[in-house]
């Protein structure tokens, strides 16, 4: 049975179902309690689960992210929320030096089953310190899984998988999608890690798009379809592990690839995807891989400038045209 949910509702459903099923699961973060989270994800959960399991934290990102690790190491299954992904920088040591390495440094004896939910993306002119998409830092850090869904059903299914997984998972939620709706399976619904979703099939060009950028890619594809250009839009859904095979297979078919990511251009995830396609599909590529990313500038405040630095549908179209030229 499908029902229509927003991303926020789908995430909440995953949280609630998993918390009902497993008493070790709990959420913590700033304003997640009675307030329900500034993006409403935990709305109503405090009423059901109470103070202990829907835990408001002080503004101490390094502290509560580290505490999530501590709880996970001794048997809990915490889900910590970073209100803005930009604040990952505040908790960075705990994320990259502690959480990502706890298992490896112990020779595989420790497990750190925790989920760190963080918002990414520019929305509503919140400027340079509240608009970033820093998933590349995490993807560059071995030991973390990194998830970046683009629709409510994947949000629910991937979040459930993340909560049940024994590895630490960075769960990137795009701010522009929280209040966008989509069909979501009721009850048990999981999406495995490492399986990309081909959101649209096509034979002229492969477009790999991450998170919200999937929507830009689909809009571009729709537009170009009018001209007879058939884009294959791939949503990797999980960046670590990444479903490289699906990407390569598509590019081997189309011979052309565009990567769209809201992270900054240089040394980001799009660069990784472009580099791997360049290597694995070398003999199949008819044109260089094109990247459509946020410019290498901080995100400016004023909306027209914000729009300018973030990939838009026209940028996606331009990128696709470039590889087809």
């Amino acid at each position, binding site marked *: 049975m499908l029902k229509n949910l927003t991303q926020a509702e789908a995430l909440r459903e995953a949280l609630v179902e998993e918390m009902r099923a497993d008493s070790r699961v709990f959420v913590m973060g700033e304003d997640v*309690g009675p307030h329900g989270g500034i993006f409403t994800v935990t709305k109503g959960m405090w009423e059901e689960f109470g103070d202990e399991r829907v835990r408001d934290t002080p*503004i101490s990102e390094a502290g509560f992210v580290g505490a999530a690790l501590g709880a996970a190491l001794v048997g809990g299954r915490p889900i910590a929320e970073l209100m803005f992904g930009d604040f990952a920088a505040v908790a960075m040591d705990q994320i990259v030096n502690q959480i990502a390495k706890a298992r490896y440094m112990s020779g595989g004896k420790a497990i750190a089953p925790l989920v760190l939910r963080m918002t990414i993306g520019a929305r509503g002119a919140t400027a340079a310190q509240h608009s970033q998409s820093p998933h590349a830092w995490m993807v560059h850090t071995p030991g973390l899984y990194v998830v970046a869904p683009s629709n409510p059903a994947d949000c629910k299914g991937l979040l459930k998988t993340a909560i049940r997984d024994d590895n630490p998972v960075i769960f990137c939620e795009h701010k522009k999608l929280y209040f966008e709706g989509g069909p979501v399976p009721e009850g048990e619904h999981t999406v495995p890690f490492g399986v990309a979703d081909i959101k649209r099939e096509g034979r002229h060009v492969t477009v790999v798009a991450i998170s919200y950028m999937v929507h830009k890619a689909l809009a571009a594809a729709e537009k170009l379809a009018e001209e007879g250009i058939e884009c294959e839009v791939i949503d990797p859904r999980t960046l670590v592990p990444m479903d490289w095979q699906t990407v390569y297979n598509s590019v081997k078919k189309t011979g052309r690839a565009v990567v769209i990511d809201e992270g900054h251009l240089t040394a980001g995830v799009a660069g990784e995807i472009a580099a791997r396609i360049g290597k694995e599909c070398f003999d199949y590529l008819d044109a260089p891989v094109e990247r459509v990313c946020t410019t290498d500038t901080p995100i400016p405040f004023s909306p*027209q400038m914000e729009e300018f630095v973030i990939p838009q549908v026209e940028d996606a179209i331009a990128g696709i045209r470039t590889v087809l030229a």
Partner: protein
Amino acid sequence: MAKAVTTRPTQDTHLLTMYRQLVRMRVFEERVRDVYFAALMPGLAHVYLGQEAVAVGVTEALREDDYVTSTHRGHGHVLAKGGDPKLMMAEIMGREAGYCKGKGGSMHIADLSLGIIGANGIVGAGIPIAAGAGLWMKMRGGDSVVACFFGDAASNQGAFHEGINLAALWDLPVVFVCENNLYGISVRQNRHQKIVDIADRAIGYGIPGEVVDGMDVSAVYDAAKRAVERARKGLGPSLIECKTYRWMGHHAGDPARYRPEGELDAWKERCPVKLCRSILISDGILTEDEDARIQAEVESEMREAEEWAAAQPFPAPERALEDLYA
């Protein structure tokens, strides 16, 4: 809640100066709120209504060549330190003519020429920056000081601990001003720390800590003056906790349902603007007529600022690529 004691100003004209600043801040922020509700500004407006006495009292103890670091709730600090309401409003509205050419917005106004090191969108991050500015003040000589504003919830950030420890260790000329408005977004102080007086944390750094009535501009001024003088003499930093309250939610669009009924009203009883005005009037320093004139002047100053700002063009989109590297 803060004690109801209201101290007397050190100088009457001084209090009048401060009063005018309180009114300016009040009117400016009311306009920002209206601009927000009229959807004339992008982003959020963390308005300063209710906390005016803190920015005014502290800044009044500063000189032009002193510095301030500010927060996401920074309009008051910027205005107090000499910020031009036109340029502020233009920035808040995302215009090219704004303080930051529309790149910063409400949370990132800076003007080094006025000693405004900058607002900050990362809670607590301004504290080590203030320590560093103080470090350079000390190293370059002279006797400038830095006032560092932050909230009650910011006092739980590691940056608070590290920044104050550095300033204490090195006897830096910094005055740390905690604006305890009882909330970090929806989380009341008793749900984010076990202590009542954040000033008690000063003990852990070996510096003076003081609690002051943050609704009483003279009390704030007096405490700030002591701390500033101490800093100027090279005796090191202090921590001043101002008990205050914000009239609105976390930002203008936040209905703040998390606050117990009556709490806001109780605090509004002690409105810093009203408190200051009643002293001035009862002491005969200000007449109702003069007050009306001040109000009118400030109203027109701020209306002009808003109108001017609203008439400014937005930056061309590609200006986004500028101003990254020097």
